[in-house]
């Protein structure tokens, strides 16, 4: 039995309508980057190397600032949140647009004290050499180099989100 030509036209039109409704518009999509790894110093170093390679795809990213901040965030998780636990994991995601690089970092370690971000507190360096601090720089660097820094604890998972301003393309 042959299909009536009118039906063939109707079905073709129907296919076009369906595809128009269910396929995304052909816009540029910046694929988000996502990696998950063990909460230890060696894996952190590898994840940072991977991140730096990925950031090269985004020429206006401030790669130096991103590396400094993400390294501090990951070190804090290894040292304080997961601290030697064998099943500790970290998930690092980022997406970049023209004005900023947006990061989300999650881990299954212990929550932040008081469920809050540590405040910005610059170490005091004006005293004698013997009194210089050897730590406490991490959160100062994170706060200084980020915008819209947030922390939440949900279902046993810590999630930190932050943005790092991109280089202006007109500079």
């Amino acid at each position: 039995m042959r299909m009536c030509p009118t039906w063939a036209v109707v079905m073709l039109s129907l296919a076009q309508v369906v595809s128009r409704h269910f396929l995304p518009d052909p816009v540029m999509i910046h694929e988000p980057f996502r990696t998950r790894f063990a909460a230890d110093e060696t894996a952190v170093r590898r994840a940072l190397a991977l991140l730096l390679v990925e950031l090269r795809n985004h020429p206006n990213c401030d790669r130096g600032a991103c590396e400094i901040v993400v390294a501090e965030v990951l070190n804090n998780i290894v040292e304080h949140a997961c601290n030697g636990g064998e099943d500790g994991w970290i998930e690092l995601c980022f997406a970049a647009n023209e004005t900023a690089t947006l990061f989300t970092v999650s881990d299954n370690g212990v929550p932040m004290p008081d469920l809050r971000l540590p405040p910005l507190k610059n170490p005091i360096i004006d005293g004698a050499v013997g009194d210089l601090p050897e730590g406490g720089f991490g959160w100062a660097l994170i706060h200084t180099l980020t915008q819209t820094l947030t922390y939440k604890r949900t279902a046993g998972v810590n999630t930190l989100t932050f943005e790092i301003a991109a280089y202006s393309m007109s500079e």
Partner: protein
Amino acid sequence: MQLDQRTVGDAMIITVNEPRIDALCAIQFKEQMRILSADAPQRVLLDLGQVDFIDSSGLGAIVAALKQMNDGQSLELACLSETVQKVFRLTRMDSVFKIHADVPDLGSCDA
């Protein structure tokens, strides 16, 4: 952790032959600096030309290296990468160390 040392004139130049001083190697760095500076002359110059990156642990270890110098010894820094400079500047540690853009001409033994 690879640190090389050489003596030029009345100074010791310690070159860090590693791309990073970070949480993974900060303690090792501090310990090697302690051993090297024990026998060093008064002026010690840390050449960071090979180091692309330091984190706050690495910064802490460099500060610790300064604090463990003997009386009268000084620790100066040279050849900081852009990112390393940024870490020093943002923590104001650039005001604590004497920082050189290049390894300064210290004169040589046979001069």
